[in-house]
């Protein structure tokens, strides 16, 4: 963490301490912020709660799988295990920027589901106060709104990983009928 950042945090903390010295609740300082991994995808900044990120994996190569929906970019070799990678640009109608060597895969995981989210590059880990997260704009509808947790004051789009991972529509189960 840069010094400026630490100073920043110290300042925020001090201010809050002051505010809260009047109110008797002091646990909230810890509860009210959330640690996120910020990444860039198609010139937009996104964030995912770091608690759900298993690792960040450099994507060197991927294999497309015919017969899968467009949001499935393909599969990669994650140390001997196959991991499917999804391209959330397809959910948000974002312009598709070609792949580069900087492409990173955010491996997100719950006991039931594991998949990779494609990103252009990672900006870093930040702590953002929950207060600064606002619900997504009402103009967003359908799948876009469904997977969004909120937008911060700085215009950072926070993805709702749990929703993405638990959405049955995300699972490809194409049973071919005779």
């Amino acid at each position, binding site marked *: 963490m840069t010094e400026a950042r630490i100073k920043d945090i110290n300042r925020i903390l001090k201010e809050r301490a002051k505010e809260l010295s009047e109110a008797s609740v002091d646990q909230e300082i810890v509860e009210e912020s959330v640690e996120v991994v910020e990444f860039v995808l198609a010139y937009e900044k996104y964030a995912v*709660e770091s*608690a759900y990120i298993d690792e960040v994996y450099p994507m*060197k*190569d*991927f*294999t*497309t*799988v*015919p*017969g*899968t929906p467009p949001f*499935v970019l393909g*599969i*990669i*070799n994650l*140390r*001997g*295990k*196959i*991991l*499917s990678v*999804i391209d959330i640009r397809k959910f948000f109608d974002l312009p598709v920027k070609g792949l580069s060597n900087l492409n990173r895969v955010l491996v997100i995981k719950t*006991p*039931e*589901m*594991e*998949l990779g989210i494609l990103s252009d590059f990672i900006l870093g880990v930040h702590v953002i106060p929950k207060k600064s997260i606002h619900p997504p704009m009402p103009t967003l509808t359908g799948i876009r709104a469904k997977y969004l947790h909120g937008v911060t004051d700085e215009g950072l789009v926070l993805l709702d990983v749990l929703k993405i991972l638990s959405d049955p529509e*995300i*699972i*490809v*189960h*194409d*049973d*071919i*009928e*005779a």
Partner: protein
Amino acid sequence: MLSQEEAFFKELLSMYKIEAEEHLKAISSGLIEMEKVKAKDKRKSIVETVYREAHSLKGASRAVNLEDVETVCQSMESILSLMKQDAIDTNAELFDILLKAVDVIDQLINDSEKTDISEIMNKLHSLEEGTSQEKSAEKKKEKSKKSEATPEKKEKSAEKEEEKPEAKHEPPLKEESEPEVPEEQEQPKASDSTAAPSQPVEVQKRLVSDTIRIATEKLDSLLLQAEEMLAAKLTSEQHNKDLQSLSLELEQWKKRWDSYDAEITSARHQSEIKGHNQSQGNGTLIDFLLWNQEQLKSVDTRINELIRISENNARLLGGMVNNLLEDMKKVLMLPFSTLLKILPKVVRDLSRDQGKDVELIVRGSTIEIDRRILEELKDPFIHVLRNCVDHGLEKPEERRRSGKPVTGTISITISQQSGNKVEILINDDGRGIDPERVRKVAVKKGIVIESEAAALSDEECRMLIFQSDVSTSPIITDISGRGLGLPIVREKVEKLGGSLTLESEVGVGTTFQITLPVTLATFRGIMVEVNGQVFVIPTVNVERVIRVSEGDVKTVENREAVIIDDKPLALAHLGDVLRVPKKNQTIQQTNLHQAMLLSSGEKRFVFTIDRILSEQEVLVKGLGKQLSRVRNIAGATILGTGQVVPILNVADLIKSAARITTIPTRVSKTEEAKLEKKSILVAEDSITSRTLLKNILESAGYEVKTTVDGVDALTAARAEQFDLIVSDIEMPRMNGFDLVASIRSDKRTADLPVILVTALESREDRERGIDVGANAYIVKRSFDQSNLLDVIRKLI
């Protein structure tokens, strides 16, 4: 986000599920064993075991707040405790109810919300009360004995430090010498993935014995890492090859040098002779050349040294990796008994439904096989057993008439074959498969033409039952008869790299022989390139590789086809079937195409491809949790280079190809759908059922007309054309049976398929359904819409 507590509870719950499953398996196999064993003392010890299992399950359920499970367990316990004291009639009904209770608990554990326990609780209670009332009414003696029994039992349990009514503690075993562990301390143990579930004694026992429990997840991750070592092995082999090619290059340099050697030597002499006459430059240049030679020679020596070392390394590493993988696979092996445990209950349930007496004999259940194969085998086993019970074994009366023992026998024999193979024989002593009947059905269904069928040997004919749609059963029931089960068995077995044969003698019985590899190791695959992408085709499915020239391709019934061995075979480009986008046209336009004749089961298809790359061993991996099933793709493999290559599912591929080529080119899809919309007549008196059926059928794309009873339906069937009738049985004015009978007796509607959907589920009713000529019989209790739609699709 999950709070820590929630996360802990979740983990606890998943541990509980594993534990509960084991208890349930033990309970149900115990119950079945109990029913068989007549000797009292032996039976008693089984009752004791089952009792203990039920008790442990109760305790565990309490820990995770599954009150319903707890309640059912409690009741089961009470009944078992009566059994221990011989205070209850151990008749078939009792076992039925207890086994039903096991089913209910299983449902509860998997979906506690949707399961209602009131029915089973009533049954359990009536069992319990029935006995006590009986007792009190019949014999005072008995009663006093019973009241005596309780203290007596208390005595027994005091020895075991057990307090029955409160059941505060886990039931310790008799041999337990350790001080009792209070429940509160025990619970965290349940969350420990390596520890045995909440049974301190068990933990102790297991520590003494030479087996331990390890979470399968951990083992899988170990296997994964071991498999990854293959990459290290391949890389080291590759390094060795690189060094060798470097050495070869040096070799060429040496030859070249040698050819100039004479010249250089003479030049050197000359420069020495001429000495200072010549310019100094030439001399130093020659010195440099010679120095250069020395250097390169020493490099060559060192490279050769390295080659030797790397060769040794590669050999050593290769051996180590192979051993590690081999042992790792052995670790993942489980005895067949883990799968076979569930089968007695399956057979029992099936045979009771059918009113048949069946004894199941299992041999060789200790033989071990890869866990992943074992998991895949569950369905095939159940399908084959269903087939044995439903079609193979005769009814008791019929058996008596033909002089066979009334109780039918199904035996499962597992034996280790040479090397990496096991053989599974599933045999029934039923009526056998009549080749004539199979022949008739196959011809009727258009699978073989009559002349072909006549030419088939009886053996070949019997093998036809593994084809989709071939069923010799006169009626579709919930259990079987749809001609789906055995094809699934065949597909699974082939997918696992095994083979399947059948022996049958009319009147004597049928034997299914399944041969499987012990470890799900690597299999051979052919790598092909299609539109620039690489795929692996399992070698098992490749009948042959051929070349097809444009002139060979004929059009048969609007499909492209080639003639192979005088038979026309459909043809498609693999890239078109997979929908792999074409890369820019770099492939030279030749007249000849590489093609492969692929087969899955009896189906064959020719696929043209761009080129064949190689054949090699491949290791199948799943596509990950998100891609649970992808059409045409069976999995993926990772090459030595780290590249991921999809493995094709040939069975799917042939289905997809058939679909692509049959779509007529001109008719657009919507028009086609309109043209093909089939109409169904529904006869049902209940408004809810009627609406439900209408909705299900309409959303499946059928045109639906509803009628309120048999008379109404009959009038409609005579007035309009329908493709199928779905009818209830119990209806006012005219019931379903009479409706079917009237429809069959009318020439215009005699061939109209009828499905009876009904609450009646007795055998007599099913048989009456056959008698009046219904095509299928679906019981409402087990009704789900996919079931109905499946049956409809089979019929029209």
